[in-house]
Each structure stands twice: as structure tokens, then as C-alpha cells.
């Protein structure tokens, strides 16, 4: 599987170990979306999953986020480069390719996790263009900078 898996595993906070939460999210930050559309399927403590793994709790499936991708850059050189600095007097809308933030509700899946460690696996799935035009894993579409596990009491 050419996706992403946390390494090393996340040490769960005591509230998560004790199942002392009413809601839990995993939030992905800095997601690139300038490429093709894809779904990021999120599994907990199931690092060996792939595109065919059922999206069911008993297989560690927690939820998905979907990126409706920009599809590439269609301007001239530099058109899709996100500026790193912004003029304080620049009132134009922000660059359209600023990375995205996507939360995934993992409440039920996290309740099933046993022990004090958690691995988060993201399987990036695209459709079409090869693999007989069906679903397949494409590693080069998934880029993000950070993930956070948030639990709420």
C-alpha cells in the first residue's frame, strides 16, 4: 500500500485510552489539492490496508475525506505557486491553491482501539486513468503537513 501511516505510532492521551470522550476527530492540515481528485480513506491500527479493504469499523475504518482536485496547473510558469508572503495592503482573495484542512470524525473507530498506541493510515484512492479505469491507490496525490487527534469530553 502506497499511502501514509504514522511512524512512530501516536501515544494516545489518557482520556482516549480510558474511552473518556464524547467525540473524536482526526484533522489533516496542509493538504495539497492541485492534483487529481481523490479520497483519503482513514484506518486506525490497520497499517496493512489497501484499496480493497472494506470500509467497515471491524477493519479499522474510521472515515474518509474527499479532495475535489484542481487537476493540475493550467496557467503559465508560476501561476499555481502559492505566494509565501502577502502584501498587507493586498485585499484580493487568497490564492486558490492554499492547502486545505479536512477533519474526519473517528469517534466510533477510536472507541474500538485497544491499548495506548495508535497508528493512522491514509489510503489515497483515485478512480480512472489506469487499473482498468477502476479504483486504485495512487501515492503521489497525498501530501499533507500535519495531523492532529482531537478528543472532546
Amino acid at each position: 500500500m502506497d499511502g501514509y501511516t504514522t511512524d512512530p505510532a501516536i501515544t494516545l492521551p489518557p482520556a482516549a485510552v480510558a474511552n473518556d470522550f464524547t467525540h473524536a476527530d482526526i484533522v489533516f492540515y496542509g493538504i495539497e489539492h492541485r492534483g487529481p481528485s481523490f479520497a483519503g480513506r482513514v484506518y486506525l491500527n490497520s497499517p496493512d490496508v489497501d484499496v480493497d479493504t472494506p470500509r467497515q469499523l471491524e477493519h479499522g475504518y474510521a472515515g474518509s475525506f474527499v479532495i475535489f482536485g484542481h487537476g493540475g496547473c493550467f496557467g503559465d510558469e508560476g501561476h499555481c505557486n502559492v505566494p509565501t508572503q502577502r502584501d498587507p495592503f493586498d485585499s484580493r482573495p487568497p490564492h486558490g491553491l492554499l492547502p486545505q484542512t479536512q477533519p474526519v470524525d473517528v469517534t466510533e473507530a477510536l472507541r474500538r482501539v485497544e491499548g495506548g498506541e495508535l497508528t493512522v493510515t491514509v489510503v489515497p484512492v483515485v478512480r480512472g486513468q489506469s487499473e482498468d479505469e477502476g479504483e486504485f491507490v495512487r501515492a503521489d496525490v497525498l501530501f499533507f503537513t500535519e495531523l492532529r487527534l482531537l478528543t472532546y469530553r
Partner: protein
Amino acid sequence: MSPTGAPSPLKPAVPLRHRPSVTEMTQPELEAFRAAITELLGKEDDRGYQYHAGVHGLPLPMYCNQAHGTPAFLPWHRAYLYRFELAVRDTEAAKQADHDVMLPWWDWATDRGIPPAYADSDAANPLRSAPINPLALSQGAKGAGAKDIEDPDERRREQARERRLAQTPNTTRKPADPSYLPTQEQIRLLLKEKSDFIGFSMELEGYHGEVHMWVGGDMEDIPFAAYDPIFWAHHCMIDRLWRMWQLLYPQASFPTNVASEVMEPFNLTAAEVLDPTTLGYDYATASTTVKVKV
């Protein structure tokens, strides 16, 4: 919920028009809608289909950059549908119809497949496929030009370029197995459990993306998605779900920093599109009119 809408505080309330379910359109309704789309396809100026489809993606600028992965997702697309619907209603075919010609919605959670109205392979069916603006195709091929493919971004651009060059000039679809579509249960839970706007909007945008990917072909690619006529029916469903949510949670707040944001290029703020009745439409699933002669 009001059966009327007031275009502005200075104008009187008037009867609303209702967007129909695509599976419940009468034959005259469907024929009038198809005639209106055919008429729009024949217009080459900024009243025509190509102009409106291009606002979402190519040709540049891609205005929908404002609307994906942001809190403007729902208001931007509501403004977009509103403007396109006005163009549909401006056609002679719509004006001559004896009913309101409105954009239909496709309930993909219930009708789990491309609706027959959009799948019918009759050559005269404008809802099955539409041409893509040659300038959009040209930009799609040019901008994704081959550069240093060692950089992951460049490699993706190269792959996009290959797809563009191989593409036919008309929209295509490659629907997946219907089991991949969002389910009624998922939508029920979304409406039941997400009482805050941001949470609702982000989850609904995820389901929206799943449907784009399910339809496949051009629908899964932002630059060309809106050229496929089913784009509008899909987004009317998204807009309808937002309307249903608004009725369920009338006290829910809307982010104040987004409310004053202008939805480009429609010259409408998010606040101005929050209430669809001020835009003249709603989503009653049944409407019976009795004309009275005086």
C-alpha cells in the same frame, strides 16, 4: 418556511418557483428544460452554456478556487446555480413554456445511478453530454506542460496534460458501482448530527466530492466538471440539502467573516444568498396550482 419570497425589502412578496426532482419531472417539463439547455448551447456569448460552465473551471480564471475546501463552498455554488438558472429562464424555450422552467435536482442517495433524463442516448438529448470550450481544452493541455517530472507537482501536471490531450471535446462519464454513492443513511445522519454550519458544510462537501468521483470522466476534474450537464443537477441536490439543513436549524449561526465575502464573479455576498426565497426559489417536492379566472 414561507411560500413566498421578497426580492428586496422594498418589493412585495411574490410566489416562489420550485426546483423539481429530476425523476418527478413531467414530460413537458423535461422537454422544456432540454429545449432551454439546447438554446443555451447555441449561444456563444456570455449568456450561453459555455460561458457559465467555464466560470467554475477553465478557461482561466478558475473562480471556484474560492469555493472548494472553504466555508464559501455552499454560498458560492448557490450563487452559481442562481445565475445559471436565470440564464436558463431567459431562453425563449423557457419563456414559452406554460410552467416555470427551473433547474432540477438529482437525489443520488435515492436514485442511485445517472437519471434516465441525463443518460438517454438520444442524439437530441443535450443533458447527456456537452461540448467543452476549445479555449478551456487548449489551456488544459498547455498549462500542464511537461517540465521537470522529478517534482511530484510537476509529475501530476504531466499526468493531467496527458489526460487533456487524450480527451474528446465533449464531456464523458464513467459511473462507478452505485454502492459507492453516499447513502440515505449517511445523509440522514448528516442532517441529524451536524448542527453547526462549518461541520455540516465540510461533511457535505465530502459527499459532494464522492459523487463527482462516482460520475467519473470530466465530472471528477474541477476544470471541466461544470461542462457536464449533470453537474447542475448534482449541485442542486447539494443546495437542496443545505436548504433542508437551514430549515432544521433556523437558529444556527453563519460565520460572520464569511457572510460579507463576495462570491466572485457573481457580485453577491454570502449573506445575500443565505435565504433562497430572496433569490426566488425553493424545493417543495409537490406543488399544485389552480388558475382562477376573474
